[in-house]
């Protein structure tokens, strides 16, 4: 066997290995989606979306949970987006490479790996008790913001790093201040990556259950929230609650709610891809 033949075999088998790796995850996802759709799809109708929670599986709906999820989504975005992007810009553009900076860096990377329930306990102590926000939407959103901040910071920094330094140098050379350079050059050039990071982080936040249960999200809320101080429930909690009920009808409801939640997540990811493509096309150097 010649060397070339050997190399070709290795090449082919590595390709095959790659294909198996790719389809392993997809196959699991396919089975999961098939199971859920088979059980829950027929349950989804307009009433299911607009009904309040009920003890009768047939009458129960996810209205308040969807509303809670949307509130949480919007408020978490409003809180985490400026904080995360601001911190990312500071760390990437302003800090010098000191010991303190690398300490901050390590800590942020570590924070991304802290289990979400820990954030729940932190949120309970700080936002719910010390700030006296109670089990409100605001307390829940602040807690989730803490949870996803590290992800946003890291994504922002990566996106800023990808901007060629020649662009920044050119801007500075033309007499632009640091702020003007960041606002007019670096940020627009990296916004696609920043937004992708933010949206993926928020997709994660809307699937979280544990921290919100600790903070005080409830199981039965018969009204849609009307202010940030209202009590709330979210879809993962409603699903969790239904899965643990004895009647089979609730398992069907849970599947249907999972489909709705999946749709929301897919939509978020779709938006992320759309923005990334759109903004990347715009950049012309």
């Amino acid at each position, binding site marked *: 066997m010649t060397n070339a033949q050997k190399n070709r075999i290795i090449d082919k088998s590595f390709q095959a290995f790659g294909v198996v790796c790719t389809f392993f995850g997809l196959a699991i996802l396919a089975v999961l989606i098939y199971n859920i759709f088979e059980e829950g799809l027929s349950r989804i109708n307009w009433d299911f979306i607009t009904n*309040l*929670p*009920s*003890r009768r599986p047939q009458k129960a709906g996810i*209205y308040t949970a969807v*509303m809670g999820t*949307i*509130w949480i*989504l*919007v408020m978490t*975005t*409003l809180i985490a987006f400026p904080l995360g992007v601001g911190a990312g810009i500071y760390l990437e553009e302003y800090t010098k490479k000191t010991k303190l900076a690398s300490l901050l860096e390590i800590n942020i990377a570590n924070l991304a790996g802290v289990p979400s329930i820990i954030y729940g306990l932190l949120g309970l102590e700080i936002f719910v008790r010390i700030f006296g926000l*109670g*089990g409100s939407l605001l307390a829940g959103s602040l807690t989730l913001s803490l949870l996803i901040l590290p992800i946003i910071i890291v994504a922002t920094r990566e996106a800023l790093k990808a901007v060629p330094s020649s662009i920044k140098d050119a801007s500075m050379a033309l007499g632009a201040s640091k702020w003007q350079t960041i606002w007019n050059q670096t940020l627009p050039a990296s*916004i696609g990556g920043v*937004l992708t990071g933010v949206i993926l982080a928020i997709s994660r936040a809307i699937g979280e259950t544990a921290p919100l249960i600790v903070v*005080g*999200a*409830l*199981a*039965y*809320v*018969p*009204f*849609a*929230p*009307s202010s940030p101080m209202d*009590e709330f429930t979210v879809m993962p909690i409603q699903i969790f*609650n239904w*899965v*643990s*009920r*004895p*009647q*089979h009808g609730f*398992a069907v409801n849970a599947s249907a709610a999972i489909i709705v939640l999946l749709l929301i997540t897919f939509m978020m990811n779709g*938006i992320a891809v759309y*923005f990334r493509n759109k903004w990347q096309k715009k950049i012309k150097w």
Partner: protein
Amino acid sequence: MKTIIKIILGVSVIFTLASCRRNTEKSAENTLKDKELRGSIKIDGSSTVYPITEAIAEEFRAVAPEVKVTVGVSGTGGGFKKFSRGETAISDASRPIKDKEKIACEENGISYVQLEVAYDGLAVLVNPANDWLDHLSVEELKKIWEPAAQGVIMRWSQIRDGFPDEEIHLFGPGVASGTYDYFTKAICGEEGASRGDYTASEDDNVLVQGISTDKYGLGFFGLAYFEENKDKLKLVGVDGGEGVVIPTQATVADGTYQPLSRPIFIYVKDKAAEREEVVTFVTFYLELVPEIAQEVGYIALPAAEYAKQAEKFQAFISKK
């Protein structure tokens, strides 16, 4: 950047509109019903009691649509923690309040009334393919579950002569649940005392799954979960010293299924009971619960007992 702002605006418009729709619906209902009552009632506590309280809250909306009743599921212990801090008006509990929790309430100046709302039977279950077992005595259950059994009682043949020489696989609720507290107290004599080497889950459906797929499995949980899974499980009779009794609606309600049937409670805070909407809610609760309890898988108290609970509540509110 503008596009983002547009999207955020769009989303907020959608859900503002959606909440408006709800509000107009609500006010239409109002003209027909008791719109005098307003306010909010916060309830939290046991997940065992949750289905009952949820059902009552659902029905209460038809009576007093402007009262916002919310129900959480922090567990009996978690519920009492919030109750003793004055954060909730009513606490759901699947066991009576503990001394430690009583002291916490006293320290914060909270007094309360305990009301029994229904019975819950704990069922001992095995796989339908298990053909050697139809009942166990309390002593045998203790032998299986007591702390000393850990790593010692590992095979069916060790429990009773004639049982197969096969490994036994145990399933039960996690240590944070009131169900676990109650079972260990009734069987092992001390709350929280049991072996640790069993499959524990807070989700009873996981236990159902475990036992129904394991011929040598044995476990315990609330009777409601058996009623919904009759075809997958086999119920075991329990001999509490006066013959074998199978847990059914009847044997739990008349108290012959002992020691594994227990009352479940709600606790009402004194400050909350000064509010009219809370009084109406609790009265409504006691009126409706016999019917609801049955519907969601629990067992109603005798009618005389409900009358007694209602009297107890009346005495509690008129005391002040």
